[in-house]
């Protein structure tokens, strides 16, 4: 029993981090604020080449052969860097395609050749789409049911998005899915991955506030020496640590097929949501005026957390699922 990443896992984390820092700098991405496609095809292709989409796909299906645990570690970093892009839809779609035996489709997704938006059912055939720019597929997920939809010919009404790096639109989609599954492992995977992204957001904002507390001086001393800020940083660190560790535990539980897998996954999702919403909010406050500017990255985490809190289920859905899950 061990909750710390292995050497091999640390290496994966390190590679992901380096890549995100060099290719996905928020300063560069800021130029694409408000576009319907923020990750261009070259960049997306590069992620594919790095094997990020294939991380948890078995080798026999053309994947890297790791598990949900390594996918969660990837998502933690994606959250920590506030990295935009349809990572969740892509990776879930890869699993759906693999489950359905759609190896050609799977190959196209894993190679980055075809892109997958996320489609969240709003009402009947009406979907809320995110990251639809450049995508000709969409993953629709609702509880344990997941389907890959064809976006060809679908008219998408763009909406002003709270998060300028998460393109938002609505569409009515009536066509039959290209493939579909009804499998609780999909919703468990979605819960853990979204939790991991939120935990990463909570962790990064805790770190950002702490760094600011060390660097910024006021009244002749570092602001982090004042109890008000110091104590808030402590609370943020606790929230982040709780979210990160619980999410890792949940990922392990799902992979091990334990009876408490649903319980742990929903607990992680509930906890990480709260941690991310709280930490991102306090992070703006801790930075004072500068944290309220567009140029600073603090607001990116705020709006991303609001989005992810409502990705693949609302906070209330997950709280109810947690209360309903069996603890053992």
């Amino acid at each position: 029993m061990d909750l710390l990443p292995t050497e091999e896992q640390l290496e994966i984390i390190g590679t992901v981090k380096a890549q995100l820092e060099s290719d996905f700098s928020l300063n560069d991405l800021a130029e694409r604020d408000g576009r319907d496609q923020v990750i261009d095809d070259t960049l997306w292709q590069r992620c594919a080449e790095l094997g990020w989409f294939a991380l948890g796909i078995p080798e026999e299906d053309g994947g890297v052969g790791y598990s949900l645990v390594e996918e969660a570690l990837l998502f933690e970093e994606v959250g920590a860097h506030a990295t935009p892009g349809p990572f969740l839809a892509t990776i879930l779609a890869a699993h759906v395609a693999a489950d359905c035996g759609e190896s050609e489709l799977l190959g196209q997704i894993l190679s980055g050749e075809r892109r997958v938006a996320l489609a969240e059912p709003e009402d009947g055939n009406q979907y809320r789409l995110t990251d639809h720019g450049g995508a000709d597929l969409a993953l629709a997920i609702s509880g344990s049911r997941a389907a890959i939809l064809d976006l060809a010919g679908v008219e998408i009404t763009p909406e002003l998005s709270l998060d300028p790096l998460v393109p938002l639109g609505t569409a009515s989609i009536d066509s039959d899915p290209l493939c579909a599954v009804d499998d609780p492992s999909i919703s468990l995977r979605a819960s853990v991955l979204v939790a991991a992204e939120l935990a990463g957001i909570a962790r990064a904002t805790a770190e950002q506030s702490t760094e600011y507390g060390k660097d910024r001086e006021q009244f002749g001393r570092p602001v982090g020496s004042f109890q008000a800020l110091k104590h808030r940083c402590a609370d943020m660190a606790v929230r982040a640590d709780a979210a990160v560790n619980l999410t890792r535990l949940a990922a392990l539980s799902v992979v091990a097929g334990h009876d408490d897998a649903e319980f742990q996954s929903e607990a992680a999702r509930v906890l990480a949501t709260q941690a991310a919403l709280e930490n991102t909010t306090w992070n703006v406050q801790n930075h004072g005026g500068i944290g309220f500017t567009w140029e600073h990255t603090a607001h990116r985490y705020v709006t991303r957390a609001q989005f992810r809190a409502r990705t693949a289920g609302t906070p209330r859905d997950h709280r109810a699922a947690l209360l309903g899950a069996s603890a053992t």
Partner: protein
Amino acid sequence: MNLDLTAEEQAFRDEASTWLAENLPTEERPPEGAEMRAFDLAWQRTLFDGGWAGINWPVEYGGRGLSDIQQMIWYEEFAKADPPFTLNNSCTFVGNNHGGPTLILKGSDEQKAEHLPKILKGEAVWCQGFSEPGAGSDLASLNTKAVVDGDELVVTGQKTWTSYAHVADLQELLVRTDSDAPKHKGISWVICDMRSPGIEVREIETMSHVTDFCEVFYDEVRIPLTNVVGEINDGWRVAMSTLSFERGTAFMADQVELAATVERLIAEARERTSADGRRPAIEDEDIAKRLSMARAEVTALRAMTIAGISRTARTGIPGPEGSMIRLFHGELHQRIYRLAMDIVGAEALRLTPVDGEGVWTGPYLQSFAYTIGGGTTDIQRNIVGERVLGLPRQ
């Protein structure tokens, strides 16, 4: 203790209500630039012509010389009139609530005569040059330097969070005129013409997509010494006199508007479906609990304001208790918009403007400013703890 309005106050209320019904603009306020400035100044002129400018300013300076209660009544009637814009979100705010009051308290006769009428008549936009990037909450450690050269000050440095600097004519500017004195003792309060050579204004975009905030850069800007308000090097005290005014009545309008916001949010929660999809959102106990607390809290804010007015009426000057209202209001404002995010369902992900009917996400983003601007809540809590409660300084 009584809630009675005097006959005069009652008449004032009726008069305000009637006038507003007839004169309130129906068009929305343009969100930026020259059009916004023109709109704000035109409304100020309309107020002046109607006799509603400077309600609690002394009569000798063109005001009506009325009480704080009447000022509050005006704000309440304004909110009731269902205006298409908010009162304090105007480029006339600083002139009416900071610059003007400071001149009234500390300005020379010439300064008063030149500037006060223009503020009331909507002929000049003022902005505030207090904050600096290096100083932040430690306002008094400001570094923008002013050297006396003949009968002028030569100013070099930088200010930030200067709302409406890009459309302003004048600025209330704090500069360091004595670098050797203790930090509170070497500051002067001057009137700066925003069209002076050497001034550069750069807009700062905020997380709520508002661009009214600016940075202002000063490169050897020359300001006549006659523009110093109060004594040279006594600017900190001059600035504090404005701040205590600010804590008094300047934010009443915000409070009255916040009460209206809660009522709108309750209406919203009655109409919307709750997160479980089975009932109106207001029947969700978590939502109901927070809404009823919000309703109680905005009502308490009004009671605290009336108590503050009662106290000021007895003592003549606003006490430090105003900082409690400030602190309470800032966090309450945020709680209310954060609650809205839990009520509006998937709408929470769709961006709206900051201002307007039935919008929530823009104001939610904007609400982050309410515990930062004008002194963070950490600073506000220090002030309450030390100046109101008498707890020892650190």
